[in-house]
């Protein structure tokens, strides 16, 4: 199995899809990479040559932010918002939605599993 950018091992899929196993590479940028290097995106990742892999790695290194550096960048962006005590930073800190969504209901992705409170009004009463 080919290795790219350190630990990531895409598999026996077409190269365009296996590139998306890299953090920061979606289908769009995967196809972009293939196009730039004139590699048929439908070729299996297993028969991508060593030197082609090298070229992919070099291109990713140069023009894309992926994996560790990308994660670090995201964490930094959030960290900056936190440090300056902005509203968005506070929302990140409190684990609540950042972009003004409602929190009376929903928002479960940010808030995590429901914490049932005994004696709280039911749905009927809410209305």
């Amino acid at each position, binding site marked *: 199995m080919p290795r790219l950018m350190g630990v990531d091992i895409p598999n026996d899929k077409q190269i365009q899809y296996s590139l998306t196993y890299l953090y920061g590479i979606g289908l769009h940028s995967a196809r972009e990479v293939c196009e730039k290097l004139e590699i048929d995106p439908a070729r299996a990742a297993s028969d991508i040559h060593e030197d082609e892999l090298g070229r992919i790695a070099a291109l990713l290194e140069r023009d894309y932010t992926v994996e560790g550096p990308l994660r670090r960048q995201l964490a930094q962006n959030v960290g*900056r918002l936190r*440090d*300056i*005590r*902005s*509203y*968005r930073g*506070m929302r990140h800190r409190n684990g609540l939605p950042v972009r003004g969504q409602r929190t009376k209901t929903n928002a479960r992705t940010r808030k995590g599993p429901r914490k049932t*409170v005994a004696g709280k009004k039911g749905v009927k009463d809410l209305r």
Partner: protein
Amino acid sequence: MSRSSKKGPFVDPKLFFKVQKQAETGRSEPIKTWARGCTIVPEFVSVVFMVHDGRKHVKVAVTEDMVGHKLGEFAPTRTFKGHSGKGKK
């Protein structure tokens, strides 16, 4: 070019004038303001504002990182002390 970038950032003219006056005279005391929607521009760095939160004025010391944000982002309008229940009196 989007409409918003054509229009440029909103900076409260009165507030900007006050900041400039302070920069000229060299005196610096907190500037009270209600202009929460005013964008923080580089000239505001190291100025201290008192931004209205609907009830009182919250002290906001502008740092370089805050440029591009709005003053109101640093003066929360809601006080949430947590829900009642166990662990609370």
